[in-house]
C-alpha cells in the first residue's frame, strides 16, 4: 500500500498533494427491550486525495474504489486549478516523517465471534432490565472497530496507523403512569475487547437512577450556585468553549478574532483549560492528526487568560501560529478540519475535594451527567441527566429536569472554584461539526463550582 501511495503522489506535479487510505472493520449489536435489534459486521474501504496548486484553492476527491486512486489524484488537481484565489493558501511547516503507529489492540475484536459480542451486550442489557418492573424499555448497543489508515504527502511524510475502538451504551426507560424517566450509560475506549468486559455495574446503576427519578421532584427554576460533576463539566467546556477555540472559527473573521484575542481574560485565575491529543488510550487520541502533524497538549486558558487555540496547518499559517495537530477527518469521506481531541478543565492545585467545594453553599444545585447540550456561539443550553439539591453544605434530595442555560462569557467568568478530583469521561458518542459526526473525542474535568447560573426545567411564564 505504501508503494501505491508513493506512486500516486508522484503522478501529480501540484505544489502540495496528500493521500489518505482507510480500511475499517466494524461490528455492531443492538438490543431494544429483550429483543435483539441487529447484529452486523461491516467493512468500509476508501481513499481521500487533497491537492493544492500555487495560487489556487483546494482540490479534493474521495472515493470507495481504490482502483480509482490515480484517476482521483488527477481529478483533484483539475479541481484545484479551477479554484482561483488571490490570497494564496499557505501551510505551516511540519517536519516530514515516516512512522508506523500501531496501537495496542487490547484483545483484537476481529477475532471475537459476533455471537460472543451479542452475549456480552445481552448481559449488560439484562442488568438494566433486572432492576425491576418499573424499567419498561431499554436500548443497549455495542460497537467496535479496527481501522488501518495510511497517510502520505508530497513533503515526504508517510504514516501508517492501526487503531481499535470499542463503544457501549445503554438507555433505561422507567415509567409509572404518565411519568417517564431515563438513565443513560455511555462508555468508549480507544481499546479493544478487553476494555468492554466487566461493565454490568454501570448499566445497573443507570436503570436504578431512572427508577429513582420517577419519585424525584423537578428542580425549581431559578438562579443558584451550581456545581457541575466531572462529566457535565467536561461536556460544558467542550461545547461552550472548545468550539470557539478552533482556529477555523476565527482565521477568516476579524471580529471573531477580536472576540478571541489571545491575552483576553476568560475566567478567574482558577480556570485552566486545554486539549491533549497525545494522552494514552482515550478516544480523541492519535499519535498524528490527519495532516501528519504530531498531536500535543495545547493550553487554551491559563490562569483565566486565553493563551492558545487549536490549529490545522492552514489556520496556523494564516494566524502566524504553530500547528497543534488538531486537523481531523471523520473518515476518508471528509477533508480534515480543525477539531478537538481530548479537551479538559485542569484540576486546581490544592483545589480540594467535592465535599470542600460544597461545604459553604447554603442552597444550590449539583448537576450531574449530560443528556445533551447545544451551543450557538455565545449561548448554550445543557440538559443534565439528573441532579441533587445542595442544602447547608451537603448533598440533599435527587431532582430532575435540570437544564442549564446561559451566556458563555458570563458563565466562564463565574467559575469560582475548581476541585482537585480530575477525571476523564470515557464515553461513547462523539462531536459533530461541518457534517462530520460522530468524531471520537473525550472530555475531562474535576468538580467545578459556578457562583451563579440559571437552572430551569420548566420555564416559568
Amino acid at each position: 500500500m505504501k508503494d501505491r501511495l508513493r506512486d500516486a503522489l508522484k503522478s501529480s506535479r501540484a505544489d502540495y498533494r496528500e493521500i489518505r487510505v482507510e480500511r475499517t472493520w466494524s461490528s455492531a449489536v443492538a438490543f431494544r427491550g429483550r429483543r435483539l435489534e441487529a447484529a452486523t459486521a461491516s467493512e468500509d474501504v476508501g481513499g481521500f486525495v487533497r491537492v493544492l496548486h500555487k495560487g489556487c484553492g483546494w482540490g479534493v476527491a474521495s472515493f470507495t474504489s481504490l482502483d480509482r486512486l490515480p484517476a482521483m489524484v488527477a481529478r483533484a488537481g483539475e479541481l484545484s486549478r479551477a479554484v482561483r484565489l488571490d490570497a494564496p493558501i499557505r501551510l505551516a511547516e511540519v517536519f516530514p516523517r515516516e512512522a508506523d503507529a500501531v496501537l495496542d489492540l487490547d484483545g483484537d475484536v476481529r477475532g471475537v465471534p459476533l455471537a460472543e459480542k451479542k452475549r456480552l451486550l445481552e448481559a449488560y442489557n439484562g442488568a438494566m432490565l433486572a432492576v425491576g418492573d418499573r424499567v419498561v424499555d431499554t436500548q443497549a448497543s455495542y460497537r467496535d472497530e479496527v481501522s488501518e489508515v495510511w497517510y502520505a504527502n508530497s513533503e515526504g511524510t508517510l504514516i501508517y496507523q492501526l487503531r481499535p475502538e470499542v463503544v457501549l451504551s445503554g438507555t433505561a426507560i422507567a415509567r409509572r403512569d404518565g411519568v417517564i424517566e431515563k438513565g443513560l450509560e455511555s462508555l468508549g475506549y480507544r481499546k479493544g475487547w478487553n476494555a468492554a468486559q466487566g461493565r454490568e455495574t454501570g448499566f445497573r446503576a443507570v436503570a436504578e437512577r431512572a427508577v429513582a427519578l420517577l419519585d424525584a421532584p423537578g428542580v425549581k427554576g431559578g438562579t443558584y450556585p451550581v456545581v457541575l460533576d466531572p462529566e457535565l463539566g467536561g461536556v460544558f467546556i467542550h461545547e461552550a468553549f472548545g468550539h470557539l477555540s478552533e482556529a477555523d472559527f476565527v482565521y477568516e473573521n476579524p471580529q471573531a478574532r477580536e472576540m478571541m484575542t489571545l491575552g483576553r481574560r476568560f475566567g478567574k485565575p482558577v480556570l485552566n483549560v486545554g486539549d491533549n491529543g497525545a494522552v494514552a488510550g482515550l478516544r480523541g487520541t492519535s499519535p498524528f492528526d490527519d495532516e501528519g502533524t504530531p498531536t500535543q497538549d495545547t493550553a487554551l486558558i491559563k490562569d483565566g487568560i486565553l493563551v492558545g487555540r487549536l490549529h490545522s496547518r492552514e489556520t496556523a499559517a494564516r494566524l502566524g501560529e504553530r500547528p497543534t495537530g488538531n486537523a481531523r477527518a471523520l473518515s476518508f469521506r471528509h477533508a480534515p478540519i480543525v477539531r478537538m481531541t481530548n479537551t479538559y478543565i485542569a484540576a486546581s492545585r490544592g483545589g480540594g475535594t467535592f465535599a470542600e467545594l460544597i461545604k459553604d453553599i447554603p442552597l444550590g444545585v449539583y448537576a450531574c451527567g449530560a443528556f445533551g447540550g447545544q451551543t450557538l456561539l455565545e449561548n448554550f443550553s445543557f440538559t443534565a441527566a439528573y441532579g441533587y439539591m445542595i442544602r447547608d453544605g451537603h448533598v440533599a434530595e435527587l431532582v430532575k429536569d435540570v437544564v442549564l442555560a446561559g451566556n458563555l462569557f458570563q458563565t466562564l467568568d463565574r467559575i469560582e472554584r475548581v476541585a482537585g478530583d480530575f477525571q476523564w469521561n470515557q464515553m461513547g458518542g462523539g462531536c459533530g461539526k461541518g457534517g462530520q459526526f460522530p468524531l471520537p473525542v473525550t472530555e475531562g474535568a474535576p468538580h467545578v463550582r459556578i457562583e451563579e447560573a440559571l437552572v430551569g426545567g420548566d420555564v416559568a411564564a
Partner: protein
Amino acid sequence: MIAELLGAVRRRAQGGDALWRREERTALAFESGRLKSATTTEEAGVNLRVVKDGRVGVAGTTAADTATDGLLDRALASAALGEALNLTFPPPSPLPHVPTFSDGAANASLAALIGVGQELVARLNRDGCQLNVAIEREVSETEIANTAGAAGGYRATGVGVGVDLTRIAGDDVLMVYDQYVGAALPSAADLDALVRSVTTRLELALTVVEPPEGALPVIFTPAGLAAILLPLEQALSGKAVLQGVSPLGGKTGERVFDERFSLTDDPLAAGRAGSRPCDDEAVPSSPLRLVEEGVVRQFVYDLETAARAGTTSTGHGRRGIFGKPGIAYTNLLVGTNGQPATDAWQPGGGLAAGLRNGLIVEDLIGVGQGNVIGGTFSHPVALAYRVERGEITGRVKDAAVAGNVYELLKRIGGFGSDGRWLGTRFAPSLLLEGVSVARR
C-alpha cells in the same frame, strides 16, 4: 451486481433483498466570500438482508474487492443471531413515475456551479459580516431487488445551495442561514428568494430589543417549526407505536389537533429531495395522509416494523450501506399543496400584522434534546424577533420559549402566507397562542 447476489441468496437462504447505490457528488465551499475548495466524491456500496431459518440478518460493504460470498457470509452470520421474524418481501408491481432527475443539474459544469456561488457572493457580501456559501450537486443511481421478484431502480439528482452570514459585534454573535434544495439547479427566482430571505432576516436582526415575557402568541416560521414538528414526526412513526411510547398510539380516527392542521408525506412531489418511485425495500411510493383536518389517520412503517405490528409497509424504509433498514419520512408537508408562496421571504408570512405583543421564532437552541416525543419543549432562542403593535421591532436575545406541542396545536391562531420548502419539509408559518416566553 444485485442479481448475482440474490442468486446466491436463493441458494443459501430462504429469501433476501439488496440495495446497491452509487453516488457522485461535487461540492464547492466559499469561505468568507472566496471559493476555497472544490470536492468530488464517488461512493458505491451494497446493503444485503437475508432471511435464513426464519431469522433476519444484515451486512454492508463499500469494499469493491470483497467477493460476493464474503458479504453473504456476514449476512448469514448476522441472521444466525437474529430473532425470528415473519418478514415477507413485496412482490413485483409497477412503480409510479416521479421526476427525480434533472439533466441540467447532472450535466452542469464546474464553472456553472462556481457561477452560482459567485453570484450569491456578489449579491450578499457586506462589511462586518462573514459570508459562507456551500454548493453541492449529487448524482445517484439506486437499484433495489428482492427474492420475491420485485425490483426498482432510478437515477436522481440533488442540488443544495446553503448561505450563512455571521456578524460579530463585540460579544454579540448573529447567524442568519437559508438554503435552496431541489433536484434541479436553482432558477433565477430561487436565487432571488434566497438573497431576499437572508438580507431581510439580517436587517431585521440588526436592532436588538428587550424580549417580551409571559404567555404570548408566537409565530413559528417554516424554519422555526422544527421544534414543533419533531415530536409529531417521532410520534407518527410505527416503531414508536409498536414500542408503546407514542402519545398518538391508538388514536387513529381521533381529532387531536386543530381541524385546519394536516400533515402529509409525499414521496411523489416532483423534483423534491425526498422523492423516489419506491422506497429502499422495493415498496412502491404513494402519498400518505398522516393527519387529516386534525384527525390522526396513519402511521409510517417499513417492512420489519410492519411485520412486527401485523400491518403492511407504507413504503417508508430507508437504508444506508451499513446497518439494517429503518423508518424515514420522504417529503413532509404541513397542509397539502406544496406550492411555494411568492412572499416566502417575509418572516411570519403576514401573521405579525395581527399581533399586539408577541414573538417570531426562526431558530431555537437544543431542539431534539430531552424527552422530545412527549411534546414538552423548552428552548433558548437562537434567532427570534419581537412583534409590537403589528410591527417587527427587532431581534430578541436572552429569551426562552416553552410549551407542549400537543396542547399548542389544538388551536392554531393562524397560517402564514409564506408556505415554502426547506429541505424535505414544506410548511407555512404557524401562529400558536399561549406559548410561554421567559427572559433569561
